[in-house]
Each structure stands twice: as C-alpha cells, then as structure tokens.
C-alpha cells in the first residue's frame, strides 16, 4: 500500500466511503460489484478471474476471486488477506455460498436491497452479473431484492484523481519507450525481414524493461498492422499477424502498457519507403485531422459536437470519406474501457452523444483513417485528460507519419 506522498497514491478508503454514502442515498444495503472496472477501482488489484467485491454499508469491502489467484490478489491490493478471499469447488466455498456469507449479515432481518451490476457492453471482460449468478443469488438470499446499481460506481469514477492520472502518465511514458524502440529497430531498413508479431514483441520487451506490467488490451496486446491490414475500414483492432513488413507499405504500431492499473495506449504510423506522393497525401490528411481533433477537445464539447467539427474540417480537406466516425472511447483503471460518461445515450449502454466533457475526465482520443481500395490506413490513439481549457495528451511521442 502506498502513502499519500506517493505520486501514484489513490485514496481507496475514501472511494469506499463515497460509494457507501451513495448506497445509503439510493437505499442500497450492500453493493455487489462484479465488473472488472469496479474491482480495479475499489481494490487496486488486477483480477483476471471471475471475481466479485462486496461493499457493506460501513467498513471495508471484501473481494473474492478464484482460489488459485487469491493470495496474489491480496498481496497486490490495499485490502488485507481477510478482505480478499478465495472461492473454489468445495462445500460452502463456491462463489454463491461465499457471496451469501458476506452479504447476508448486512441485510436487516434477511431483507434489504443488494445493488448489483448488469447491462451490456461491447467490452467482453466487462463482468456484469450473469443470469445464472443472478438466479442463484436470488435463491440464496430469498428476502433480498437485487437492484441494478452500476451507475453508482460509474458516476463516482468519472472524474479522475491525481494518483490515477499520474499512473496513466507513467503508463504513457512506457508506451513512448516502446515506440522509440520500434522506431530504432525499423529505421534504416531495419524492418526488412521482420513480421508484425516481431514488432509487437520488441515493443513489449522495451516497455517491460521500462516497468510495464503487460500489454493490457484485450484486442491482442500490441496491435500491429501492415499493408492492406492498415486500411481495413472496420479494422480498429489489429492483433499482430505473421505478415512480413514490405517496402512501399504503411505500418501501424498501436502499443499498450500498464502501470498499476493505469493504462497506456498510443498508436503511431509509418510509411515503409519508398512512399508515393499519394501515400504522403493520405498521411498529411491524417496528421492534420489528429491535430484538429486534439485542439477541439475541451470542457463543454460533446461527442456529437466534436463529430460535427471534425467532419466539417475533413470535408473541407477532401478526405472525409476516409475517416471512420468516432473520436472517443472511455478509459479508466484496468477494465474501465469504452464507456463515455455514464453510457446513458439513446441506445442503452452506449455513449450519450450529448455528454458534455468536464475537466478531470479522461478518455482515449482514437482516430481511424482507412482507404481500403489503396490498402492504406492510419490510427491514432492517446489517453487525453480534459483540462480547464483544452486537453492534455498523455503520450508524448511526436505526432507524425515518418517515411522509413
């Protein structure tokens, strides 16, 4: 556990207390978190297995995870081993039995309200309560009422605290180290004979040497694309393939690093020479669009207004056809991906296009430029922090599309 003087310190106890206040206001006796984002936000540990966190009305929460990983999770967490428990296929120790044991004492007379997390998500490891778990808990807690309450955590975790922001800054620094390593490896023809997977690997090695814990993205770790794969119009995630890098083709390098659950995510692009003037034209379009987008981000901007601004700009430049719509996706501590604001748009659990950004929000600025017919495309991703008068891109690797 870190101290307040640590730049990466997060006051998890204060988070728990804030959630308990919100629970009381919402009439919830116990909060049952099952989403990866909630586990990260409350425990400061990474939970790769099906896990839960039970937040009582007062006092410390208790996380439970698959037995084989429980001691490691407790070691990483600010919670002690009495508050990070294991479950397993044993009498009284299966998930539902342990949850019942933790929840029941906080339900007055066996009755009360259990807040839980459900919904839908584009993100596979979201972790909403499954139908089976819901039914089993209902049966195990016959006097209780289960109520969807995921918005409590989402609301409280929207504005990022300094410790979280600093963790993202450090993860972004590690990503920049990875990008520098890729550049040094591929320049002066060094890319010849390399494959996409090799680029992913050498970036991983550099980032790990810099302290990154893993290439956290569920989309395949470091996403590397070359040639026609860069130009896939619906190709915003490109797990590295065994494709060899070839002269005259574009190369997309999208790296991910993690530092204490803070996430680095930055994409940089190259033209493997010799590049044509047409390829450079595409590259200039892309860079100008990114510059315009970063300049447009500020408090009060909405996804909808930003899209209008961007498409006006790109239509004026004559390249709007190549830009994939969408200039934002949410980000938070590990597991908090994709949602913008409270995901309370006109389509359930999707971005609200009228969500107004506020200082202290963090998101990924993603841009995908794709021209499939010319087998060329570029991607930009960077965590940005909304500031009082604009935004701060956390990855500092210089923007550009270099010809190698």
């Amino acid at each position, binding site marked *: 556990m870190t101290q307040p003087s640590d730049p990466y310190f997060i006051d998890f106890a204060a988070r728990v207390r804030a959630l308990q206040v919100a629970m009381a206001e919402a009439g919830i006796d116990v909060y049952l978190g099952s989403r990866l984002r909630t586990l990260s936000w409350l425990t400061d540990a990474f939970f790769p297995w099906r896990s839960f966190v039970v937040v009582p009305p007062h006092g410390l929460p208790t996380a439970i995870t698959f037995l084989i990983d429980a001691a490691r999770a*407790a070691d990483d967490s600010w919670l002690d081993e009495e508050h990070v428990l294991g479950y397993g296929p044993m*009498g009284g120790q299966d998930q539902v*039995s342990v949850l019942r044991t933790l929840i029941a004492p906080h339900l007055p007379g066996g009755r009360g309200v259990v807040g839980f997390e459900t919904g839908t998500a584009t993100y596979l490891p979201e972790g909403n309560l499954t139908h089976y778990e819901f039914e089993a808990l209902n049966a195990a807690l016959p006097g209780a009422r289960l109520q969807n309450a995921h918005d409590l955590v989402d609301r409280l975790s929207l504005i990022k605290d300094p410790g979280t922001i600093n963790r993202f800054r450090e993860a972004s620094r590690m990503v920049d180290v990875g990008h520098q390593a890729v550049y040094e490896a591929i320049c002066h023809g060094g890319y010849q004979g390399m494959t996409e997977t090799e680029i992913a690997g050498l970036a991983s090695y550099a980032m790990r040497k810099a302290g990154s814990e893993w290439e956290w993205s569920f989309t395949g770790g470091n996403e590397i694309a070359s040639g026609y794969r860069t130009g896939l119009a619906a190709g915003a995630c490109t797990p590295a393939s065994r494709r060899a890098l070839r002269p005259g083709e574009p190369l997309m390098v999208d790296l991910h690093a993690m530092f204490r659950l803070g996430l680095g995510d930055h994409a940089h692009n190259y033209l493997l020479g010799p590049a044509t003037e047409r390829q450079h034209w595409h590259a200039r379009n892309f860079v100008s669009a990114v510059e315009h987008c970063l300049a447009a981000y500020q408090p009060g901007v909405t996804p909808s207004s930003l899209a209008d601004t961007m498409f006006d700009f790109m239509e004026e430049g004559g390249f709007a056809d190549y830009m994939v719509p969408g200039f934002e996706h949410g980000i938070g501590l590990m597991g908090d991906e994709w949602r913008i604001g409270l995901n309370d748009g006109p389509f359930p659990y999707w971005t609200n296009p009228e969500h107004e950004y506020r200082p202290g929000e963090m998101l990924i600025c993603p841009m995908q430029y794709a021209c499939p017919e010319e087998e060329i495309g570029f991607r930009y991703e960077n965590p940005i922090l909304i500031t009082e008068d604009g935004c701060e891109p956390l990855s500092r690797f210089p923007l550009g599309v270099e010809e190698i």
Partner: protein
Amino acid sequence: MSEELVYLSPAWVAEAGRRLCAELTPEMLKRLTSSMLTVYTACPDGADRALYYNVVDGVVTELSLEEGTPRDAEFTITADYDTFARISRAELKARAALMSGKMTLKGNLVKALRLAPVVDRLNEVLATIPTVY
C-alpha cells in the same frame, strides 16, 4: 488404553483433548493461533453436536463439546455424523468430502488451505483413539 470410547461422548472428548496436548508440539501445529468448530449433523440420536477447538501459539488450549448454539470460530466445518465417522475411520479423505460437498467450510478458504496440514495432524491423532461409532 484399549477400552473403546463412544464417538463424541464426554469421555471420548476428554481423551481427544489429552492426546492432542500430549502428541502435538507447537512446531507440528505451526505455532498456529486459531479456532475451529466442527459441527456434526444427524448424530445417531438425531441431535446435532459441535466440537470447539482453540489453539494458541501451536498449543491446543481447549477441546470442548458445545451444547446449544455453538460459539463462533474462525473456521466452521459442517458435515453429517456419518461423514465425519468415515473420515475418522480413514474410509474417506477430508478433502474429497469437501470437494464433493459432503462437508462445508465456512471461513477464509485461502487461510484454511494453508492450515490443511495442521488439521490433518489433528485428525491423525484423533484417529488413534479406540472408538465405537
């Protein structure tokens, strides 16, 4: 001692406590400090019974038969009388009973697994008592 004692009778419990103190050193019990309750359901007379173990720094300081509502303990192990009897007669492994759901454990599973060898040693001593079930 060759006289057979009735399982869970006061005489059996007294003999169990004596043997645990005499035969287990603090090192064998890993200088553990903890408490454990074993709840026997469906005893031959139809009643439920519970044994309460208290261990301080590797010394068994208490082994008592609980009457009425048993005390809380750090770990509670519950099974029917027959299951416990089969474990005592070495006809069934405790781990198998737990994993098949014949036996339930309440308490921190991570810690319980760490202490499993200690519980095995307790059971090994109890198994030496000439017992009639």
